[in-house]
Structures are given as C-alpha cells and as structure tokens.
C-alpha cells in the first residue's frame, strides 16, 4: 500500500508538511491566475511591498500563536486563552503610554521618565507586558499540571476572565497612541521588510533550538503520547506541562503587541478575538495531532500562512466579509480531508496513506 504511494518520493522529514504545502501551492496558483500582479514585489518608499509580503505581515500574530500552541497541543493540551492574553499584553502597553492612565495608576514620575527617556520606558513596557503574559501562561500551567484540570477547561477560565482583566486595566476605554518607538514593533521596517517578521523568525528559530537542540522536544512528545509511562521513565511531566503553557503565554504576549502596535490602539474586547481558533487550526493542519505526541513547528507555520493567504485572497477577490467565512471554511475542510489517511484511501485511492494516522498506529500498538 505505502510502497506504491507517491509519498515515497518525498523525504521523510518533509512528509508531514506535504498536504499543507500542496494546499498552499494551489491557493497561490489560484491567486496568480485571478489576481493581477499577485507575484509582483516592488519597493515603495524603501520597503518591499506586494501581496506575498502582506501575507507574512498580516499572518505574524497567528504564526507566533501557532508556535506556542504547537508545544501545548503536543503535550495533549490546548490553550484557548491566547486571544485573551494578547488583549492583556496589548492593553497594558497601550495604557502605559497614556499619560492620564500613568498618572492615575503609577504616579507622575512615569510620565517624566517617558518624556525624558522614551527608549527606557518602552523597554519597561515591553518587559511588563511580556512578564504579564508569561504569568498568565504560568497560571494555565498551574491549573493543568498541578491541579490536573482538563486543559480545555483550565484555559477557558482565562479565555473568559482574561478579557475582563484587560477591561479592568484600561477601565473599559480604548486607548489610541502615537508613539513611533512602540509602533515600530507592528509597523516598522527593517532591511525593507516588516519588522514583525524578524520577531516571528526569531521566535521560531529560538523555539526550534529550544526543543530540538535539547531533549525538550522528545520529552514534550513523550508526555503527549503517554504521560503515565513518561513519568515512570523519569520525565519531569509536571514541569514540562508548566513550561509549554508559559511559552504559549509569551508567544501570545508578543502577538498582542504586534497586533495592537500595528493599529496604534488596543481594544480589550476585540483584539485577538477568535485568534486561538486560527492558531489551533494552523497547528492541526501542520500535522500535529490534537491528541498530542509528535509535533511539527514548520507545519504549524505553513498552516498559519495558509490561513492568512486564504483571508487575503478573500480581500483581493473583494468577497464581502459575511460571505468570506464560507469559502474559508470549505478550504479548511478540504485540507483536513486531504490530511486524513482514511479519506485519501477511500476517495483518492492511489494516494496511499504515507504513514498510519495516530489512531491507527494505536490500534496497531495492540499487537
């Protein structure tokens, strides 16, 4: 069966990425045909511009979320609170560049500091936002690993309460600001490319190194695949669970900063709304099973890009936002079906399953 599959021409390391790459390719092809100048990349005022660059820029937040979400899902969990954590981090940053808020909450000295040393103040803001995000992740990690609450419920708590916390911070107001130094994160350009891309690249590379140059990746996969057996083999199951939720929190915090500084404001209710769903989708499309185990960071990034390409295609085709969700859902469904070995076997016939799906492998495990 597998011997006759076209999969055998693909190097094993790339196999999990095959179907998302195929889908991405098809979608790009569609655009090349129907959107004039789709592949064109030009220079406008010293920055590279074009449809392709937009995909990367617009998809930065979801790509970041997908990185943290990949690790969480690999341990067999899920983090529904990333959208809310984005809001907390964004609102904190926006509040701290608002003089009235500083005066009321932190004291007048902060405004002096901001006026005299804006660079230092921005560094403090970033630190505060990111620390808050990591703490939010640690809270999830504690509920899941120490109190053994189901991840979906544990993170649901913060998904709901997190927006409340964000509202509380800014007293329900929407702060807009004009602080170029801060806005650089979401809007700036470096070597002609969006600065946010460098953040994404840095986080992806760092996470890759963190998981694959150490034994962390192996242990995460082992916890997701069989946590009881992992504990019996000396894997620090609790610490690893804790860690992945903290990483996810950190990624969400960064995503929140990018998303809000790009529009120079932070809306506690709207920012990052439903982003957790996009992130989960990106991870699953990228080949990491929701049941945990083996994970593929590269696949998750491709999944996120696929999603963004889809969204941008709708814009380019001027599909109205209400209708846009339907073709989006259809493409998502198609990718998921392509990923299912059972579907490929039944419908496509010739494309044998490259490797048994997780459930199948588990059934085989009963041998």
């Amino acid at each position: 069966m597998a011997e006759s599959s076209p999969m055998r021409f693909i190097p094993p390391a790339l196999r999990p990425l095959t179907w998302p790459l195929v889908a991405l390719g098809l979608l790009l092809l569609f655009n090349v045909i129907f959107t004039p100048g789709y592949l064109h990349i030009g220079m406008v005022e010293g920055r590279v511009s074009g449809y392709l660059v937009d995909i990367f820029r617009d998809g930065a937040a979801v790509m970041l979320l997908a990185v943290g979400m990949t690790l969480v899902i690999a341990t067999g969990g899920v983090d529904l609170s990333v959208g809310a954590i984005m809001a907390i981090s964004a609102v904190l940053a926006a509040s701290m560049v608002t003089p009235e808020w500083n005066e009321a909450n932190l004291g007048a000295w902060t405004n002096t500091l901001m006026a005299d040393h804006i660079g230092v103040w921005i560094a403090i803001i970033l630190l505060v936002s990111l620390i808050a995000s990591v703490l939010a992740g640690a809270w999830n990690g504690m509920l899941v690993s120490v109190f053994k609450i189901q991840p979906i419920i544990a993170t649901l708590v913060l998904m709901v309460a997190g927006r409340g916390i964000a509202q509380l911070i800014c007293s329900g107001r929407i702060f807009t600001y004009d602080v170029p130094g801060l806005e650089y994160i979401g809007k700036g350009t470096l070597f002609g490319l969006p600065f946010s891309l460098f953040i994404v690249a840095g986080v992806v590379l760092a996470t890759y190194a963190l998981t694959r140059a150490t034994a962390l990746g192996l242990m995460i996969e082992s916890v997701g695949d069989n946590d009881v057996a992992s504990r019996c083999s000396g894997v620090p199951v609790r610490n690893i669970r804790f860690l992945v939720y903290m990483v996810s929190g950190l990624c969400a915090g960064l995503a929140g900063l990018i998303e809000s500084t790009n529009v120079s404001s932070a809306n506690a209710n709207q920012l990052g709304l439903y982003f957790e769903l996009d992130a989960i989708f990106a991870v699953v499309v990228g080949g990491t099973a929701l049941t945990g185990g083996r994970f593929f960071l590269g696949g998750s990034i491709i999944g996120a890009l696929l999603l963004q390409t889809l969204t941008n295609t709708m814009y380019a085709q001027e599909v109205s936002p209400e209708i846009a969700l339907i073709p989006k859902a259809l493409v998502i469904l198609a990718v998921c079906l392509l990923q299912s070995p059972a579907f490929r076997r039944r419908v496509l016939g010739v494309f044998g399953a490259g490797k048994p799906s997780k459930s199948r492998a588990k059934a085989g495990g009963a041998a």
Partner: protein
Amino acid sequence: MSESSTHPPLLLVRGVSKSFPGVRALDNVELTLRRGEVHALMGENGAGKSTLIKVLTGVYPHDGGTIEFDGRAISPASPRDAERAGISTVYQEVNLVPTLSVAENLCVGRFPTRGGLIRWGAARRRAETALERVGLKLRVGRQLDEYSLAIQQMVAIARALDAEAKLLILDEPTSSLDESEVDRLLELMDSLRSGGLAILFVTHFMGQVYRISDRITVLRNGAFVAESMAKDLPRFDLIGQMVGKDPEALRAREAEVRALHQKKAGGGTLARVNGLGKQGSVAPVGFEIGEGQTVGLGGLLGSGRTETARLIFGIDKADAGSLEIDGKAHRPGSPREAMALGIAMTPDDRKVNGIIPNLSVRDNIVLALQSKRGIWRRISPKAQRDLAAKYIASLNIKTSNAETPVGTLSGGNQQKVLLARWLAVNPRLFILDEPTRGIDVGAKGEIEHLVADLAEQGMSLVFISSELEEVARVSQRVVVLCDREQVGELEGEAISEHAILEMIARAGEKEEEGETGWKPVPLGDEERNERDGDG
C-alpha cells in the same frame, strides 16, 4: 487429515499475506481449523501471530490469499463484522474501555434495548451471567480500571464468550493470569471444545499448549512452517520449528543459565527495605537486597508484588517505612527520585506504564537515560543511534529499523525495548516486573541469562514473575507475599517453587475461610493514574 473429509474444516486460510511499510508480517500463511478443536498458534516474538489474528478479524485488510469460514469466503472489514460472522476474539492487549463500568464493557455494541433505550437492568444481569461463566463475581457497576489487569483480562474473555460464536480466538489470554486462573480458563476451554466450538489459542507457555491443544501450527518470520498433532510433536521439536535452529543448542543454553544462577555468591548489602508500605496498597514489607543479588518477589496475582515494586520505585509514595540505600533512609515520591538513587524498573503493564507508542524505538530506548541527564544535556543524535543499534543487536529486537514507532512492534519486542531503556541507564538496583510476559521461549532464556549476567557484574535485581518456577530459578532470596502482606522469606537452598507455594498456602489457611480465587482487587489508590507530577 483424513477426518477433514468427513468434517469440512471450519476455517481455511490459504496463502494469506500482509505487509507493513518495511516488514512482510505474513507471507503465504496457511491455517486450518476444525470444529471442536483447540488449535495452538505458535511462533517467536514478531512471527506474525497477532497480525494473522487481526487479518482474520478485519482489523487489517490482507494483501493476498483467501479466508474461508464455515463454508464460504469471507473478508471481514471490521472486528464487528467478524463477530457477526461468528468469530469472537480476545486481542493480545486488553482492548476494553478502562473508564467504563464492567457491565458497559461487557455489553458495548450489543446492549439489550427496548424502543431504542438501553435496559440497564437486563444489561447488568447479562453481564453477571457472562462473568459467571468464567467464574468471576464482580460488582458490575464499578469502573473497569478499579480491577487488576488479570481481572480485566478475564472480563475481556467473558465478553468474547458472550457472543454467539463458532470460533473463539485467544491471543495470549493467560499472560497476566496466575496458575489457578489459568486452570480455570483451560477447563473452560475444554468444556467449550466439547460443545463444538473451535478455539485458536496463542501463548508462549509450553505447558499450557500441551495441556489443552489438539493441533499446533507454527509460524516463523511470517511464514507457515508446519501443522502437527500436539501429541506427535515433542516439546523440543516444537521449539526447533519456532526458532529454526537445533533444539540441542537451546537445551545447552538452559543448563548454562541454571549453572550461572547457582554459582553466584553474595556481596555486601546494597539496600534495605524497611517496612515500606502504603494504606490500601500493601502492608509494610521488609527485606534486604545484596549487591549482585537477585531478590524474587513471589506470590499470586494481587498479592502485592507489583505494589511493593511501585513503592520502591516511587510510582506510588509509601506512607510508612523507608528504603535504605548506602545507609541513608529514603522514601521516593516519584520515579525521578528513585532514579537518582540508581533504581530502575520495567513495569508489568507495558501499554500503560511502559511504551510511548508513537515514538520511535530509538526515542523509547534513550528516554530514561535522557531524563536522567536532564533536558538540557541532550544525547547527541549519533550517540542515540549507536545506543539503539547496540540494544537492538544485543537483545535481538525485531524491528525494521530504529525509527519505527514502537507501538507497531510485536508485544514481546516492545518488552525488550523497555528492558533496553533501563539497561541504558546502568542502574544499581533493577526491578523487573514480569519481564518475560509475552516473551517467546528463546527470548525468555535470553532474559534469564541477561539477569544472571547483570547480577554477575554487580547489579542487584528485584525479579517479579507469575511463573513461580522462574522466580525460584533466578533468585537467591525470595520474599513471599500473600494478600498484600509479606508472609515469609526463603533463601539459598531453601528456594523452590514448591516451598513458595507452600508458604502461600499456609498463610492462606491462617486467614478465616474466605472465597478462594476471585475477588475484586482494587488498584489501591485512585490517584495512581492521575499522579503524574514529579514533585
């Protein structure tokens, strides 16, 4: 063969093949089963026995050949399909839902209903009747995983018998049963056979094969070797057919193992178990473990052997007593803590506590060593490959390569991977809980040999096995447990299977007349499966 003309065979398998990526698990296999016979299917680990059964029952599709059942060609698409056709199966690893109740497990897929609603009362009664047939009295409303693995295995058998079947398939049903339970099962098989049922029986226990089976079919490397009448096939010839080697070599090996274990002399004391116990699990036990000594834990199922091992290794935390190593008292609260003391353990329930099914053989082998070194000091890819290659070769693990997911290996080979995982950390004290479960005769000898070699190199071992004869063979000291209590200790010359059994029997007499055999054995502590922290 002559009677096959008068009675057409019930099952005719001809030329069946099955390949997995990189493995030809079945190659032109044949099998003939007649009504009213018990037919043993024998072969080494990885010979293809379970795969053949899964092909017969529609778990896997087959690549070629024909299956004829009850006079017509069948190719079941799922186990339910096979069940409807009259083939009832107990798979090698217990295939029930641990979080459902016993009654639900027995009735899943065939609940008695009225107007679309489940009749719970009838389901309960039906479950009780089904259990009675295998001589089991359980509270059917309780969750299945409150009972021990042995009882779960009997429940699986009861479930298989409950269906209207013409053919019953049992894949290593006795691997976690102790003697009295095995007796009961074999008696049951005997009476079913008289009722005209055909039974296909897979086991690595030679004794059981010769006690119950009429015919024997042997597979080797996925291919059919021979079919013989059991009474015409001496034990050593059977082994020869299975391993494809001269049985004389095996006989010599066995003698060698015996000699190895006898000549061992005791060194100093490595560890002292001082009244280690836990409420609801096992009453305080105490014994000494010498350097290079093998201590056997003898007892029947549910006697507290595994529980004692779990306390020493910190899987469950003891609430009384201590473990003294190098003169210091410890009470390990997690396997990590026990590992830091130089302890290792292969668990009895490899599916739950042992293998990481979707990770590769290599990952599974390096896991414990890697945990011991810590997350940040990764073992280099080359060292990982070398380690895996070393153990695949030295333990003779049958796998297409080191990157194969361990869950696709045959049961016995999974067990060897677990042994490799712990040998890699080179422990001072190695606890082996049922290390030979599901392991073929050849490999069993190898493992006993390994135990002797390790002890010779100065490693101390705690050895647990349902086969008391094996415990007696490898141990220099045997701690005998009964009803979750230590009832005695045997040393040196005094050790024999008979002596262990006698000690258990005497302990049993002292207790007031209780029901013999079956009684529910709760796992001890509910949090066992939930506690996965490393605190």
